[in-house]
């Protein structure tokens, strides 16, 4: 480990939900670090606690045991407002179902996180254009989500995740709703982003996708069962699938 703290650090993290008096443990005793520039796949069958883990890394949820550190700071110490602001500036979410606002066109969707960073409209739109350009969607800037294909919508969503230059992009089954060819294109886009130094955490249940990431964390029943970092030769092979 270097002297500077890891980007993300989970230490003995557990999350228990209590609904109608019944306690359900979604995640228990999970510890791992994610360093700047990594691309990590979090794998596991449904119900294994992947989404809960992602919510905690994404500051949408707090652990009930253990602690999540973002750049060395315990996120539980941050106020709700501060965590919201950090989501706007430091976290880029990509969802399986894209989650674009249906009533706004692509460029407005991409610019949305900047509204919550207090950035003026002119700059928002300029940066949204650049971000759309980066994912090859500038020609669709004024299309509404319903006018775009699934792959195009996911590209717009990735542009939105990138716009505030986040510390980390969190992708929850980003190819889950796409056909295999479009999915491969989206994965290639993630790989290309990672080569520019973007830290990416991708949740998936597809071993084929996990295989393309340099590191895979396996979850089962809320517990970490394996944290594999393949030989350094592997990413070179996977870069040209």
């Amino acid at each position, binding site marked *: 480990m270097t002297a500077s703290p890891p980007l993300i650090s989970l230490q003995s993290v557990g999350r228990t939900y209590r609904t109608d008096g019944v306690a359900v443990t979604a995640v228990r005793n999970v510890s791992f670090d994610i360093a700047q520039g990594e691309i990590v796949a979090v794998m596991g069958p449904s119900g294994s606690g992947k989404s809960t883990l992602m919510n905690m890394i994404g500051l*949408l949820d707090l652990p009930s045991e253990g602690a999540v550190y973002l750049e060395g700071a315990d996120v539980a110490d941050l106020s709700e407002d501060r965590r919201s602001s950090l989501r706007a500036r430091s976290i880029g979410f990509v969802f399986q179902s894209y989650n674009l606002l249906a009533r706004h066109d692509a460029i407005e969707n991409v610019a949305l996180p900047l509204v919550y960073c207090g950035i003026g409209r002119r700059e928002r739109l300029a940066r949204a254009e650049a971000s759309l350009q980066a994912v090859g969607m500038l020609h669709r800037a004024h299309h509404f989500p319903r006018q775009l294909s699934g792959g195009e919508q996911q590209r717009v969503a990735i542009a939105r995740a990138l716009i505030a230059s986040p510390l980390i992009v969190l992708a929850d089954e980003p190819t889950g709703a796409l056909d295999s060819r479009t999915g491969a294109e989206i994965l290639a886009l993630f790989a290309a982003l990672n080569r520019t130094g973007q830290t990416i955490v991708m949740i998936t249940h597809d071993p084929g996708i996990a295989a393309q990431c340099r590191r895979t964390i396996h979850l089962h029943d809320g517990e970490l069962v394996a944290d594999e970092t393949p030989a350094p030769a592997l990413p070179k092979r996977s870069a040209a699938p």
Partner: protein
Amino acid sequence: MTMLQGFQIALHALRLNPLRSFLTMLGIVIGVASIVTVFAIGSGAQLRLQEQIRSIGANVLMITPGAVYQGGVRLKDGSKLTMTESDVQAILEQIPEVQAAAGSIAGTAQVIHEGKNWNTTINGTTTGHFMVRDWQLATGRYFSGTEEAGAGKVVILGSTVARELFAPGDDPIGAQIRIMKVPLEVVGVLDRKGPAQDDVAFVPLATAKLRFLGSASNINRDSVAYIIAKVAGDGQMAGSRSEIENLLRQRHRVPAGQEDDFKVQDPAAAMEAQQGAIRTVALLLVAIASVSLLVGGISIMNVMIVSVTERTREIGIRRALGGRMRDIRLQFLCEALVLCLLGGAIGVAGGVTLSMTVARMAGWVTSIDGQAIGLALAFSIATGLIFGFYPAHKASKLSPIEALKTE
């Protein structure tokens, strides 16, 4: 997120469903429109009364004929002219607080000048009339003593009559007009006093009796239809009034215990009382109109609650992308405010149109003042804040994780 961004987002959201937005704000529109209209009509009526009060003049008492008994039958008030010119003289001489007084008889007639003619009130009186009412001349002069005594064929025109009979450039002074075939010389034109007051032509009392109105005079050549008297000083109205009453009772030989054959009134005081009544009715109507604002506010709250439920996923997305709870609250509060403000603005426009229509069709005087409009808009902003707060608060409290799971 700033307030401005909140309003931009709100406007965008409301534009997507214009019919629904309009129906939502309809309650506010109707409430504000009725408040503005009621205010306009109410203050118009007050203005009209104020004008009448002003036109009578300050500290003026009006003496009119009262009940008259003829063989035990009580006749209608004013059916007999019980007041006389010598009553006027007596009031002037014996009551020191009275500065000026004048008797009048009046009727309507056609006035003719060359090709033009006009139907107006002919008021036979003395120069004292103008003193009592503080009524200045625009041009010319009042009646001379000789004209008053000798039934001179002269006339003083109210500004409306002068305007109707003479072209704008013409000088009416010295011109001949005819009333009931009698040629009269215009010696003066009066200042404007108000639309209802300016439509009149004054002739000397003697002239009116001799030439126009006196022929069928009910009692004698001395009688007048009413007397007006000006009292010096504000505090002396009540005292002078009873002095006049005593004097006239004596002069008319009214036995003790019998009803007076005259009435002394303080028209300004009566009108002020009337004004108070108008104000009360207007306030009552505004209170009723406010109920529709309340109903409008409830309808906005209802639609906003539905809207928050419908847009749960949007709220989740905004929260995940960095929207703070207060940003979400501001967004929905802005929507409620925009609905109310827009509804308020439409309501003001509707109210102004409505009161102008009423003014034209019913001939009422209406007056739209900025204060009423400001008040109505302030009410609608308050409605937006009060009824928008709960839905906005509800939206901000949604858990982003749960919100993102909903379809």
